[in-house]
């Protein structure tokens, strides 16, 4: 199976009949090395508008590295990243964020000393236009902007049902709620592409169900394209439109959950030889 280079831009129809949009992000022949170790070996796949795209694989398969490439935390040695029809030059993470790609982290990266509200507000930074000098001169404009951003943030707080902890410092929250606040912050940026690195890691069954519902609702309500890494196969099958399977830095499967589940390579990777 070699990578198909000419990209088709026709809408993609999944076997269950759902139409998903054009290619939003296209990763072409990506190779990433740390020193001599190849973490990702010549991987290509795309993410289409409006879909939930899962990246799965055993530990050490290179899933997080892949997400870090998309979000600009790593720059691959080889390959191209295409975003919204244009080739993306090597970028810093903050520049990627400003392109409209928001993310969460496996180990949660929140501003622990700040309140939930302030944390989510930082998600709006890329939407704040008024500059430093302008803020001190046109106080009214800065205030109006602040109010607009606050409204956008309140909608998300309401959406994720975290009203009760609005003023609580993040450091005092339990793990499950922190994950939700991190999602809220990423959503506040109104991203074109939302990257979730193991959004359900370390959660109990109930919290996982809540989080799944939120992810589906986000995709449904805001039409946000989502790429996520997840270990729990059940969750992946329920949530995602298409799945990329990685193993040892290679891509071993790509397709709908059903296709992937029946793929022999995938079965081997998961059930055959254990990597741990």
């Amino acid at each position: 199976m070699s990578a198909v280079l000419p990209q088709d831009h026709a809408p993609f129809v999944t076997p269950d009949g759902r139409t998903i949009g054009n290619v939003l992000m296209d990763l072409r022949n990506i190779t990433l090395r740390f020193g001599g170790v190849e973490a990702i070996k010549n991987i290509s796949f795309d993410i289409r508008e409006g879909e939930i795209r899962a990246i799965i694989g055993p530990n050490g398969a290179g899933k997080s590295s892949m997400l870090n490439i998309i979000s600009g935390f790593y720059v691959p040695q080889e390959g191209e990243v295409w975003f919204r029809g244009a080739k993306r030059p090597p970028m810093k993470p903050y520049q990627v964020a400003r392109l409209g790609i928001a993310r969460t982290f496996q180990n949660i990266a929140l501003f622990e000393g700040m309140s939930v509200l302030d944390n989510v507000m930082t998600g709006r930074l890329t939407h704040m236009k008024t500059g430093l000098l302008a803020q001190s001169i046109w106080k009214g404009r800065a205030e109006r902007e602040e109010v607009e951003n606050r409204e956008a943030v309140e909608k998300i707080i309401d959406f994720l049902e975290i009203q009760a902890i609005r003023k609580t410092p993040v450091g005092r929250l339990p793990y499950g709620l922190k994950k939700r606040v991190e999602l809220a912050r990423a959503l506040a940026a109104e991203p074109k592409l939302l990257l979730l690195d193991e959004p359900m890691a370390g959660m109990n069954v109930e919290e996982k169900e809540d989080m799944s519902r939120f992810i589906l609702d986000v995709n449904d309500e805001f039409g946000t394209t989502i790429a996520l890494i997840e270990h729990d196969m059940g969750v992946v099958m329920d949530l995602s439109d298409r799945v990329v399977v990685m193993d040892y830095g290679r891509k071993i499967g790509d397709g709908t959950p059903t296709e992937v589940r029946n793929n022999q390579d995938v079965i081997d990777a998961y059930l055959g030889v254990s990597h741990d």
Partner: protein
Amino acid sequence: MPAEFYYGVEVFLNGLMAGVLYALVALGFVLIFKASGIFNYAQGVMALFAALTLVGIMEGQVPFAHLINATFGTNLHHFGWQVPALAAIVLTVGVMVVFAWLVQRFVFRHLVGQEPIILFMATIGLAYFLEGVGDLMWGSDIKTLNVGLPQGASLWVENNTAFLGGDDFYGFFIDKLDVVAAIVAAILVAALVVFAQYTKQGRAMRAVADDHQAALSVGISLSFIWVLVWSLAGFVALVAGIMWGAKSGVQFSLSLIALKALPVLMLGGFTSIPGAIVGGLIIGVGEKMFEFLIGPMIGGATENWFAYVLALLFLVFRPQGLFGERIIERV
């Protein structure tokens, strides 16, 4: 009330005023430390450099005059104009911003992710470098700085408080400059708090201080924030330089006030802005009162060491300082 008591009060007030200056310098440290984890040894020298630059610009000095004269055999010293104080301050702020950018671009950008001790060593180098540059640019002679701040004892206070203590008391001796310094410092701190809480950049600054990775992910450019923070620290240094320079002249010893800021930080905590203020005031008042009350019994000159001993006690009993975040070692 005996006159002694009122002298005590006067010493206390003077201590507060001195404390304000300590606090100002400590504030510069805290800003940079919070945002980047760098302990900036050069903060004191930055104050000296800022003050030198201000005097130089005001008096129309030709920068690097010695160097130019020695190289080209010319005899340049002054442009021959005088720059008004306010314009000179604005220009100096500009110089400090350029300095902040240079430091970020040529020093710390190459040291991202290094051990704190390496960063600290870099600031030591920076301190000596800056001291040399200051000398070279503006000359090493002691200069007087006069930006038009009121100076000298406040007769008004003296006259209106003289009745308090009877015949042996002549009223409180309070330097007007100290009062101005206190007011300026208060305004500066208030402005900084407003900036940090309510502006986009302030929010970004707090975000960077809290978590670099998370800050990157919401689109904050770390290098921009660091330039911003160093610029702010440069501005604070300028204010401290003006106050100190106006009081005792712009000279090398100004850079040593950085050493006084160290115990202030140990008291207040390295990451707390209110801590820097309160710490500064405690050290200022503490050393003056100690000298006044205990000094005569043990031969005086306690001001040289009091602050450090106090800091040492704090290190033993409350290492995170009065307001610092509790130190928790994560395993």
